[in-house]
């Protein structure tokens, strides 16, 4: 059953600043601290910016200048899809001879998903393939200055906003103090009057109740708020915006300051320079089959354990003790195999090597159901304690971990034995609902 393999059925506990339970595929492993790390206990750093459609790389300074937007790509204001440039042939008079017409190429923007075109807004077709959306923000735009987002856009345009936004909370706001001016530009005074409460408001237009609503013309909130400086209420005023840049980030352990994940700089590459993910260091538990679970009846659940490293790993399982502070979710008693389980190393060339001797591990058939290269299937016994609800069990895994990070002291024999440390993880499984 494919639903048993869903990642959130098996959760590992991360003991960081907060206790987080997450599937192993979403966790990282700091091999210097020998601890699991989740996304919330690492620091995220921006590596590079890139556009998701044209995959153009941009250094951070340039990205900041362009307000994190790509210069070449546009987003449809209607459905937020990427716009594509299309060309049509229109007859146009030749520049030398006005009487003759020749076919000229005219370019316009079109969306393949909702069929929006730049002609809908009144943008003229261009004879060159590049488009530049004119920045229409201006102080005299006639919009309501009580709207804070409008104020912010106006200030950003004139370079006044950035210093203001970095004010420390609680400190008095000094509006134009200490700003660096570009050469040749005068300091533009942006005076925005505070809103005044009025007794008389503009009356509604007379045909407000009788005029039929033109629904296709009304913009949705999402379309409106994606353009915070104008927030047009009519669909015929929705102009396309430049596409937002995405960023590549690298993760760093907060305790030892080592990098846990560092992607390659090139936006077309999905590889990583450093990739310390948990699935390549910690044995993974997965649910293979669940029988019908009944209240207070013992059932056998088949789990699999996979060894990600190339050396033999010894795994032993423990039940959680009474009053274990980590064990808050379990609704069933579990009996785990008492013996230590041995997992063979992951051998990438095993399928090609025909002469390999099958390793003899002498498994107890009551405990180990099957063994296949670096994976074993084993049984646990579950007794649901509650009459209703989902059955959740928890236990602890203890396994040996060879630290392949460079040893600090060279050994005396000349060989470098890797240290073996024993790690304990708390694992929770959600086995699904009870059958009455």
């Amino acid at each position, binding site marked *: 059953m494919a639903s048993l393999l869903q990642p959130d059925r098996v959760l590992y506990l991360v003991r960081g600043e907060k206790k987080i339970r997450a599937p192993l595929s979403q966790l990282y492993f700091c091999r210097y601290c020998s601890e699991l790390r989740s996304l919330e206990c690492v620091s995220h750093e921006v590596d590079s910016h890139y556009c998701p459609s044209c995959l153009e790389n941009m250094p951070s300074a340039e990205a900041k200048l362009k307000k994190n937007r790509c210069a070449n790509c546009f987003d449809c204001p209607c459905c937020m899809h990427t716009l594509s440039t299309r060309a049509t042939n229109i007859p146009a008079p030749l520049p030398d001879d006005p009487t003759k017409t020749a076919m000229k190429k005219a370019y316009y923007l079109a969306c393949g*998903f*909702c069929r929006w075109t730049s*002609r809908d807004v009144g943008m003229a077709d261009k004879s060159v393939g590049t488009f530049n959306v004119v920045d229409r923000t201006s102080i005299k735009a006639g919009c309501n200055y009580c709207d804070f987002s409008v104020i912010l856009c106006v200030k950003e345009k004139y370079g006044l906003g950035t210093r203001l936004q970095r004010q420390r909370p609680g400190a008095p706001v000094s509006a134009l103090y200490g700003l660096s001016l570009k050469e040749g530009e005068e300091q533009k005074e942006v005076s925005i009057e505070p809103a005044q409460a009025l007794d008389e408001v503009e009356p509604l237009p007379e045909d407000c109740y009788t005029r039929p609503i033109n629904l*296709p013309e009304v913009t949705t909130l999402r379309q409106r708020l994606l353009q915070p400086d104008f927030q047009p209420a009519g669909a015929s005023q929705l102009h396309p915006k430049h596409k937002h840049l995405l960023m590549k980030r690298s993760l760093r352990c907060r305790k030892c300051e080592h990098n846990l994940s560092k992607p390659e700089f090139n936006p077309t590459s999905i590889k990583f320079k450093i990739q310390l993910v948990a699935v390549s260091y910690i044995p993974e538990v997965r649910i293979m089959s669940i029988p019908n679970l009944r209240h207070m009846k013992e059932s056998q659940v088949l789990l699999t354990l996979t060894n990600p490293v190339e050396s033999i790993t010894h795994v032993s399982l423990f039940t959680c003790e009474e009053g274990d502070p980590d064990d808050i979710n379990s609704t069933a008693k579990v009996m785990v195999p008492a013996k230590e389980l041995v997992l063979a190393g992951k051998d990438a060339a095993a399928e090609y090597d025909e002469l390999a001797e099958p390793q003899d591990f002498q498994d107890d058939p009551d405990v180990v159901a099957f063994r296949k290269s670096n994976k074993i299937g084993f049984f646990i016994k579950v007794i649901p304690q509650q009459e209703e609800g989902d059955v959740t069990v928890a236990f602890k895994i203890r396994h040996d971990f060879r630290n392949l990070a460079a040893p600090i002291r060279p050994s005396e024999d000349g060989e470098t034995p890797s240290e073996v440390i024993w790690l304990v993880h708390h694992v929770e499984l959600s086995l699904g609902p009870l059958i009455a």
Partner: protein
Amino acid sequence: HTHTHTHTHTHTCVPCECTVSLGPRTVVHPKARIIAEAGPIIIGEGNLIEEQALIINSYPENIMPDSEGVEPKTMTIGVNNVFEVGCVSQALKIGDNNVIESKADVGRNVILTSGCIIGACCQVNTCEVIPENTVIYGSGCMRRVQTERPQPQTLQLDFLMKILPNYHHLKKTVKGNSTPARS
């Protein structure tokens, strides 16, 4: 000239003319199904019906085929429409220049005027006349009105009319269209 690869079903228990007639310059891809169950289907010219598309004039759900008083309703499809791959169309009246995109589902009580585009995977089961130049798109079947109507696919039709006979067997159709042609 028309290329046909169609099924026509005739129910012998209910005497009715259940035929399919296709206009000139209409291209029907192999594996398309045009089923005239509860009435004839008249398809105009210049239409493009792609693979695995299903155009069916079926009985409404609560009416048994044998009940009396059921008049066969004609399904009319206009010119220059495009039925993309895998779409299902049961609409009784379709105008001109419409595009029903892949895996869209158009119900029986919908009337498409002209220039409408039913987006991919959109199900339109309402009982209404879709105004001209409407685009239905997205998982929530959002609607908007476009200013241009979709262009007729003349280039595609010409290309297909040359290429398809090179790769598929074609049965000769008998003039009159009243005999069922099993393929």
